[in-house]
């Protein structure tokens, strides 16, 4: 019953996505709250979010396959469906964000390998292909092909996650605001969110995953370190880092909750679901912070920028609708593929 409700909701959201996308095609990106000072918003944030989740899950799957942990294999197969759907959502959101979405394939012909976006595109495509291959059951549980696939998947997923650190974020401000913690940050967020999603999948499909709580605790700590480091490194600046504090506070709260669960009621599905949703929210907020912190910058240094307006961004209803729509498409795809997988 609940599955039918979910499918219905997902279908409605998908239709919303289609409508909003076509609206955007006709009126251009003026339907969003973006402007020249604040060019990347909810869509790019959503793109980062979904691809981070997909990356995290793929790393999990790759490790499961590489080390041939057969007990986790079924979970991995279900998780693969989710990660593929996430990749598709990410692609839809990115497509919605482009000024000329139907020219998107030019990234292939552009061949500008200095650009992190090109690498993004290639890596994500490879991830998608590998994921699809896995989904179609073409990868056996063991053997040479399995190892090759796992290694490739690991490289592609890790590569995608780390690419922004290596190329983009540091170059964007060319040392102005980049910090050494970014690589760790994106990787940690990706794994953390991915595992939380896997946890949810496990809980939903009634899988027993002992040790997952411990893993989540470790990953939370791992996620906190770069955030705290970045906050300490930026303590001297006059930028309002309030949102950073809020995110750190949330992460610490998650840590405490996880510890409490571990100590007092390990394996409790309700608490674990709640904390997983919290983790997913935290990752979403962190992506939002990532997008915003580079764009709220005046042209001149203080105090000369007194007359420049600090750009603000608050997504319009349309943008939320489109993003929610892509979640709906994601869910619909998951349902469809699961339905097809299970006769």
């Amino acid at each position: 019953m609940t599955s039918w409700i979910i499918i219905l909701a997902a279908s409605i959201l998908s239709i919303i996505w289609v409508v909003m996308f076509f609206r955007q095609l006709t009126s251009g990106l003026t339907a969003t709250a973006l402007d020249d000072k604040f060019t990347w918003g909810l869509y790019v944030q959503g793109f980062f979010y979904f691809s981070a989740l997909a990356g995290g899950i793929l790393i999990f799957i790759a490790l499961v396959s590489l080390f041939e942990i057969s007990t986790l294999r079924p979970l991995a197969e279900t998780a693969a469906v989710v990660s593929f759907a996430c990749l598709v959502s990410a692609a839809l959101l990115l497509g919605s964000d482009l000024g000329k979405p139907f020219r998107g394939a030019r990234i292939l012909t552009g061949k500008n390998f200095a650009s992190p976006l090109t690498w993004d595109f290639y890596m994500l495509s490879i991830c998608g292909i590998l994921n699809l291959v896995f989904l179609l059951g073409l990868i056996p549980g063991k053997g040479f092909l399995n190892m090759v696939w796992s290694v490739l998947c690991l490289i592609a997923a890790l590569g995608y996650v780390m690419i922004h650190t290596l190329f983009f974020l540091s170059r964007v401000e060319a040392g102005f605001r980049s910090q050494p913690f970014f690589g760790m940050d994106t990787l940690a967020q990706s794994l953390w969110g991915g595992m939380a999603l896997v946890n949810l999948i496990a809980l939903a499909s009634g899988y027993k995953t002992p040790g997952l709580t411990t893993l989540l605790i470790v990953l939370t700590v791992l996620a906190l370190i770069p955030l705290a480091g970045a906050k300490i490194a930026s303590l001297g600046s006059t930028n309002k880092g309030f949102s950073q504090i809020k995110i750190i506070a949330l992460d610490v709260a998650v840590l405490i909750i996880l510890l409490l669960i571990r100590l007092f009621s390990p394996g409790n599905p309700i608490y674990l679901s709640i904390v997983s949703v919290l983790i997913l929210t935290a990752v979403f907020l962190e992506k939002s912070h990532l997008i915003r912190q580079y764009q709220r910058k005046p042209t001149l240094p203080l105090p000369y920028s007194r007359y420049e307006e600090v750009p603000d961004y608050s997504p319009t209803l349309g943008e939320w609708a489109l993003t929610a729509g892509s979640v709906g498409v994601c869910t619909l795809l998951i349902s469809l593929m699961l339905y097809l997988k299970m006769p």
Partner: protein
Amino acid sequence: MVIDLQKCVGCNSCTVACRAEQGTPAGVHFHKVVKYEAGRYPNAKMKFLPMPCMHCQNPPCLKVCPTGATYQCEDGLVLIDHDKCIGCRACMVACPYETRHFLWDVACYFDGQLPTPFEQVKQDSFDRGTVVKCNFCVQRLVQGRLPACVETCPSQARTFGDLDDPESEASRLIVLHRGTRFREELGTEPSVYYIKG
């Protein structure tokens, strides 16, 4: 380009000449003059920073463009091939000088009105959903003329020339007055120098 900040009086002739020459849509200016105050009463002064595209020699926008729409020609100018641009706006996030504009919409000048004949003629080349920016009036350069902003400046504060040629007026001014560049520490190697500022 070399801009003399002592001569610049913030009149914005360059900005409007650029608009007239390029016919950019409403809300889009390839050139801007940032105006600010320095000092406290009674020693307060107005200050101005004219900013065309810096045409960096190490341009961050070129590096992040996934389709290669942004390219650098052999003169050193950084230009955009509008047929290749997909409107991802990575270049705008990458540019530390906020010099690029995304055509969210090709709006007309008089709010609530239809495009004037000027816009009808000039704005065919503006494609909604792509990114545009200053191109140092390359269409004038090939005719042997100077960019519109340089020619129109009433204070003659701007000089345009070959930075590779040490005898050119631009190079000499940079050496004579120890020209500096805006946000040099980012490593972008801009081609626009400021003197006496």
